[in-house]
């Protein structure tokens, strides 16, 4: 299953750094797949992906794919944005509880300003000129 891809103009205002460890996350995202890690023994998910399990501190981790589907826990509209993000303002950001039982914070797009909390959302890939980010939108 791959995530829908939404094209965005220009480059990412704050491009994330990529490490040897996080490269699989960003490469998969560009291909429409949202990944994270979990400990091989304890199988507890974390996000963002980490080279160890923050809960048990086990160092053997494996990559797993997330469905990208979940419910909207909270959100806001950023009207007063950092100078670097001025061209995108106002924009919505949110907290989402994914169906796999983990909580993430991300951008919310294509949503009315009165979208209700606990609504269902799905993840999309934002394709900028310099690389991907992700976001959620109403499902």
């Amino acid at each position, binding site marked *: 299953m791959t995530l829908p891809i939404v094209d965005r103009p220009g480059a990412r205002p704050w491009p*994330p750094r990529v490490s040897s460890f996080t490269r699989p996350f960003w490469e998969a995202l560009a291909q429409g797949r949202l990944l994270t890690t979990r400990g091989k023994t304890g199988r507890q998910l974390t996000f963002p992906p980490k080279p160890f399990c923050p809960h048990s501190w086990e160092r053997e981790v494996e990559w797993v794919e997330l469905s990208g589907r979940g419910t909207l*826990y909270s959100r806001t509209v950023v009207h007063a944005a950092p*100078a670097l993000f001025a061209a995108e*303002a106002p924009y919505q*950001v949110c907290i989402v509880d994914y169906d796999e039982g*983990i*909580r993430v914070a991300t951008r919310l797009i294509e949503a009315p300003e009165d979208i*209700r*909390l606990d609504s269902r959302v799905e993840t999309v890939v934002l394709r900028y000129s310099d690389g991907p980010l992700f976001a959620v939108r109403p499902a």
Partner: protein
Amino acid sequence: MTIPVAIIGAAGLPVGRHQARKGETPQALEHELLAEVVIDAVAGAGIGKDMIDALVFAIPRAYTQQLYYCTFIANFLRLAVDGIVGEVQGNGMTGGLAFDQAAMMIASGRAKVALALGSSFETAVDSAEHMNRSMRATGDIDFHTPFGFTPIAWYAMDAMRYLHDSGASRADLASVAVKNRRHAGLNPLAQYRDPITLADVLAQRPIVAPLGLYEVPPRSDGAVCLVLARADLAKDLGRPHAIVKGRGFHHEGAHQINERPSDMTAFQACRRAGQAALGEAGLAAADMDLAELYAPCTIVEVLAAEALGLVPRGRGAFASRDGETALGGRIPICTSGGCLSRGHPPMVTPLYGYLEIFEQLTGRAGARQVADAEHAIASCELGNYNAAMIHVFEGRA
């Protein structure tokens, strides 16, 4: 932690926009303004500068040009000490950590008198530019910052969830700003003192929905000094003072967000730290006569008050609307005017909170005096209240 600690003096620069733009003359220099405040605070305490054993500074903003600020000030004021000179840093808790470290120097017997002090100047840098820096302070800079989160965006998400869960209206929440402005009108140290109405608050431009301009912190400069001493010395000096009765701290091991879904508006760290502080003091939330809460936004005051048990869960916005948390109400909160109207020079904001409590518990709060104030509670925090430090105080005439 065996020797009881007291606040015996406090002074602060009126909070406001003191800083001039780079290149302009004259400049408002942090060290000149802080030195005046230190001299006032120490004089008010009734001690000589040779009695001071420790200087614990809140680290200044990155915009402060003078580096090694703490030793520079020690030289500027010719303060030679045997205890410690240093700067502490902990986001919005910075001033609280300075106070806590100064108190621990006394409690451990390493100092008889300690200063907790600092300045926080930033208003020469405009908000959008400042946020290019502050956005890197919350969440993960590779996994959250790219989406455009700002520090107050997290509080706004608290507000959105709270309105959804509690049934309070945006106007109920906004009443906190009206109440705090009324308090600030009685505080000579406050940045914004002209009265505002609920309609004024609701009419402001949106900043981070649902919060508008008057529900988020202003940009502020400030400088403040607290004088702490052994409680027996405080008693011997024979002046009104405030005893540190209890202290609590908790960090959730979360930085704005934890990947395990939890009740974000419960402010668990604040709840746990509050219980610890009240427990150490042998007091209950109901014993508090006032509270000075670190609350950069309206919603934060509501959630911290609920977490500390000053108001029931889910009722904080209604309590504000109904006047329970105003001067003259059941439990006055932020009699200084709080971050919203007293002003918010972030690195020293908690120190302004203790200053307000010192004035209230020693009967010097003038027109905003809480009658017969005996016990007070103060909070400060890291991030989205992922960590909280709580102190409980008792006044001594």
